[in-house]
């Protein structure tokens, strides 16, 4: 995990170089990199030797639920383009939000009904059960060699040096904010956690919801905790050591972190109703201008282009890195290679599925389209696709990404199995809804880790 974190930093440095090189020249589409093929207009064709007569139906199950906006739209566009180029292939898409997706994938897995291509997370909590039961197809690394995946990004999808999935994006958590609300209330972007606390109090005084949070899904909470812990001792690794049972969660630093996090909840930093808000609800709250900030991953860069929200909002949405402390800097970011795809071992058409993934990950397709749609940060090098006409939000996000100096790796809740995950998330809900003290919280996390370690 540490290794992954470091590699992620390397990758981000590469991007920053790319940005610098592109910074001056503005609107020209950056099409020339040494490895790139000249064809740059149409989505690139990369099909294998499918006989056109054979009718193939591929089931495609994804957690990019919103098909009309952001990365979900990009994904859908590529699927549509593929089907157009391969009239014999029909791709049936099923899309659900993260948590329902993860429940449903278990249903599929337990009944050996895994769709041909599934969204996968390069994290033990998701991947291990599937791999332990031999449900995923081993992919051939050489098939994707030309796709410029960032070094280290495939690690989470690999086991015993075999590749089982491909990462779609680099995920990192930021704080989105509404510049207009900030400006109207004379608030500056907070540089430190103490300043963030002041911002929260100021907003509350003006009866504005500070931070939209999807507390019902709850998976953002442990990521906040990762930040809090890093800001206490300047190191993301302590949390991983605790899960590995080298130290206890009752460690003074970790308890302090829990208290710091709780202090925000006690100051009502999270938007009213956050405990019953799911992803969509939290996102809407922010998008409709009803909360000043939104704690979410960089994949939400599509906020700046989502037509469901007012133009006013779209022009005013920005992002900043989680504020610093005396120990942790803003360049220490909770980041990991998360979502991607895997192919079911029981697929009736494994070649077709792999062929689609090859097409999908051709740099001209996913990484270019995703970046240029402003919908996320690909896990492939994309510096050649910088256009200079990125939205402000995209620029601010890439700032966070490119200046990153250390990263958390897999978020706390995803290190263990599902039971561990549920317990961790519930402990966070209890702590932050004031049903549990920081000490009891530490004990709950210890118990969850013990149980996981004992398996």
């Amino acid at each position: 995990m540490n290794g992954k974190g470091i590699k992620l930093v390397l990758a981000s440095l590469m991007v920053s170089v790319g940005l610098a090189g592109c910074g001056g020249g503005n609107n020209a589409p950056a099409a020339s990199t040494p490895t790139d093929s000249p064809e740059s207009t149409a989505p690139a064709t990369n099909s294998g030797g499918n006989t056109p007569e054979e009718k193939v139906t591929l089931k495609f199950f994804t957690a990019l639920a919103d098909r009309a906006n952001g990365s979900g739209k990009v994904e859908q566009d590529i699927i549509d383009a593929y089907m157009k180029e391969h009239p014999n292939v029909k791709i049936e898409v099923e899309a659900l939000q993260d948590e329902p997706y993860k429940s449903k994938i278990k249903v599929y897995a337990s009944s050996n009904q895994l769709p041909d291509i599934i969204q996968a997370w390069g994290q033990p909590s998701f991947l291990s059960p599937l791999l332990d039961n031999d449900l995923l197809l081993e992919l051939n690394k050489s098939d994707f060699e030309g796709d410029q995946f960032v070094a280290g990004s495939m690690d989470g999808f690999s086991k015993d040096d075999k590749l089982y999935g491909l990462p779609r994006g680099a995920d990192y958590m930021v704080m989105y904010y509404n510049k207009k609300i900030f400006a109207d209330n004379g608030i500056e972007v907070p540089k430190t956690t103490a300043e963030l606390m002041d911002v929260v109090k100021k907003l509350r005084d003006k009866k504005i919801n500070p931070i939209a949070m999807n507390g019902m899904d709850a998976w953002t909470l442990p990521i906040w905790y990762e930040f809090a812990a890093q800001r206490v001792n300047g190191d993301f690794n302590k949390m991983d050591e605790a899960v590995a049972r080298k130290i206890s969660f009752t460690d003074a630093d970790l308890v302090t972190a829990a208290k710091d996090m709780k202090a925000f909840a006690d100051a009502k930093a999270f938007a009213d109703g956050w405990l019953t808000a799911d992803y969509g609800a939290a996102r809407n709250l922010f998008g409709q201008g009803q909360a000043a900030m939104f704690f979410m991953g960089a994949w939400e860069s599509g906020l700046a282009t989502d037509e469901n929200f007012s133009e006013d909002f779209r022009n005013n949405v920005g992002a900043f890195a989680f504020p610093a402390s005396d120990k942790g800097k803003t360049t220490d970011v909770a980041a990991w290679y998360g979502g991607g795809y895997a192919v079911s071992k029981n697929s009736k058409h494994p070649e077709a599925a792999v062929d689609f993934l090859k097409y999908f990950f051709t740099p001209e397709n996913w990484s270019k389209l995703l970046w240029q749609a402003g919908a996320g940060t690909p896990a492939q090098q994309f510096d050649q696709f910088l256009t200079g006409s990125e939205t402000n939000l995209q620029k601010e996000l890439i700032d966070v990404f490119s200046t990153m100096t250390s990263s958390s790796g897999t978020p706390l809740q995803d290190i263990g199995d599902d039971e561990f995950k549920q317990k961790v998330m519930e402990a966070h809900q209890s702590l932050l809804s004031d049903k549990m003290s920081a000490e009891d919280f530490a004990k709950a996390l210890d118990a969850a880790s013990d149980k996981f370690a004992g398996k």
Partner: protein
Amino acid sequence: MTNSLSPAAPLPSTKPHKEERRKVSGGKILMMAFLILIALFQLFPLIWLVDYSLLKSGEFFGSSFLKWPSPPEWQNYVNAFTYGRVPRYFANSLIITVITVMLSALVSLMMGYAFTRMKWKLSGVVLSLIMMGMIIPIHATLLPNFILFNKLGMLNNMYTLILPYSAIVIPMSVLIMTGFLETIPRAIEESAVIDGASIYGVIFKIIFPITKPALATVCVLNFISTWNEFIMANTFLTSEDLKTIPFSIMKFAGEYSSNYGAQFAVMTIIAIPTILIYLLFTEQMTKGITAGAVKG
């Protein structure tokens, strides 16, 4: 004792009331006001639903709770129909619901007859077993049913939903049917048997027409519960081509998470058929629920 309460004939719906002769008192006005208040309380969701389905997404967060849509955002319905595959889901729901309703009506008629008229040793035992089904939480069968269908290779066709749906409604349907059948005099059947009719002739030619009101109740109740069921639909169905309409809400909540207007349009589309069916068959429902309950 309980049986004596069961009305021999279907409930008279227009019973002349004594009160009409008395003059309108203050108490009565108060009572009517109270009834109207409760009626508004119960009707509110419908008004709210339709109202919001005609608003733009941004307006949902406004300060007033009901808002006059000006102009009405019909586009929400267009979106619901075009993006959400609503027509497809609607058709699926209709097929699954109609088959379930017919199947359960037939089964409950046959069982109801066997339980109330036929003489067999295990009658009481089997009836109690079926009645126990009313108590069993269906969610407890969710998981094993899934495994069962999977082992039998039956996942991903309509029967995956039709069979459990039909099974779940059997207890209540049988209860209503037996309750109703016991109020029917046996003389007609007896003369038919003397005339040489077979048992099936009796059931389908004589009993069926007589029990139509109870069957209507069974059908309406089952229609409503089947149409609205979503946890099984969400768990069992995997193929996009088979999904039912409550699922489209889940789908919409995800896929069009920021388009509240379209979500509400879909919800309205879901709500309309059940309300229509209910309004058409209000009387049958009332009678049926009563007939079943009184006996139980």
